[in-house]
């Protein structure tokens, strides 16, 4: 189980996290890895919190649920508050500073990136924030071959939106690389 990577995507309903987890899982499959994707539903299908997990391994994956995330994405404050205490310090943490205002504990390596803001301002569409987040995650972890990932995104995107989504993915890379210096538990962005 040494190769097991557990990725936890958290945020609010409507932020496209479940779709992102499926895209990630699909990309991993195309990259010839074993993968399991799960999600948690609230008491109802509507509103509220949203959480999806992806496990990637070269071995067979037995237990399908995320227990010790190696990657955590928090797309809103509530999920940040809830999940940060549950991960171990080694975990790669990416938060959307558009919605999350900390506090960024010093003992965690937290990449606070203005994900939704960048999607809105630089691509004109908030809805692609999820792909942008995937770009940032892959930039940080190299979970999946970048080209295969891009292709997978194109394949799964709704008709006509393939390129936009790929752009968002690439923007995620850029954002992550630009933000590299700030992995200090403190976001460089003032959240609004």
């Amino acid at each position, binding site marked *: 189980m040494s190769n097991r990577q557990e990725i936890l995507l958290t945020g609010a309903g409507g932020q496209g996290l479940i779709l992102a987890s499926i895209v990630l899982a699909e990309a991993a499959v195309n990259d010839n890895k074993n993968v399991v994707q799960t999600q948690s539903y609230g008491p*109802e299908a*509507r*509103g509220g919190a949203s959480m999806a997990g992806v496990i990637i391994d070269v071995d067979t994956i037995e237990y399908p649920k995320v227990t010790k995330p190696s990657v955590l994405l928090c797309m809103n404050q509530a999920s940040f508050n809830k999940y940060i205490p549950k991960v171990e310090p080694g975990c790669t943490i990416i938060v959307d500073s558009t919605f999350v205002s900390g506090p960024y504990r010093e003992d965690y390596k937290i990449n606070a990136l203005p994900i939704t803001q960048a999607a809105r301002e630089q691509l004109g569409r908030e809805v692609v924030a999820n792909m942008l987040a995937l770009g940032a995650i892959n930039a940080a972890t190299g979970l999946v071959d970048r080209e295969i990932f891009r292709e997978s995104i194109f394949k799964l995107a709704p008709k006509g939106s393939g390129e936009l989504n790929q752009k968002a993915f690439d923007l995620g890379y850029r954002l992550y690389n630009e933000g590299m210096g700030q992995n200090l538990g403190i976001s460089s962005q003032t959240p609004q």
Partner: protein
Amino acid sequence: MEQLTQDYLRTKKLPHIWCPGCGNGIVTAALVRAIERTGYDQSEVVIVSGIGCSSRAAGYLNFNTLHTTHGRALAFATGLKMARPELKLFVIMGDGDCSAIGGNHFIHAARRNIDLNAVIINNHIYGMTGGQHSPLTPTGMKATTAPGGTLERAFDLLELARGAGATFGARGNAAQPRQLEQLILRAANHKGFSVLEALSPCPIAYGRRNKLGGAVEMLREMKDSAVSMEKASGMEPEELEGKTLSGVIFSTEAPEFSEEYYRSIGKA
């Protein structure tokens, strides 16, 4: 609404679980106002509901509340009403709850003319399970189980009720909340089984898939297509095309079942 909210809503349970722009809240608010106007004591009022987004209203209403099984609300309510005829029962159902799985109890409550106030929140879809078509989804509209548009014909819920023997049927909508309140009140004051169909937007599971815009657009369309019974009587059939009748569609009198029963055993 402040005092009403404090008294008749379980404020600790708010904000509710419904999606932004969901009509369930509008209908629930109209119901609360109407209940207040009936003059019934809070302790005499019972809210019974089935299962669905709309049926979750029961949990937010500060009365005796009974959230039953999918489709069976009227059957539970029938038992309760017969046991305690002095209680005033409002039965909240979704369109699927009432007319799909619950269709049989609906027609039998109508036949018996038992004094229950059915409030059907018709969003033309199964909201809670994510957008499958219901017997009230208009032909051609899309749903997760009708990706190309449903081929099935829809019920006219009030015609169904009438055919089953109901004595009161009215239709309102979330885009005319004052009129809706008024109609619920009239339904509540009717003796016997009353059917109140409240058209309500589900922007998430219905509007989005059918490209009807957001909640605001859906409400606007709802308002525009509503034609009151009075107005309709002066309109040509062609003008009525695509319109929806609203107001009290029918109202007659017949013996009420629980009263008849208690009279028959010498107790009323």
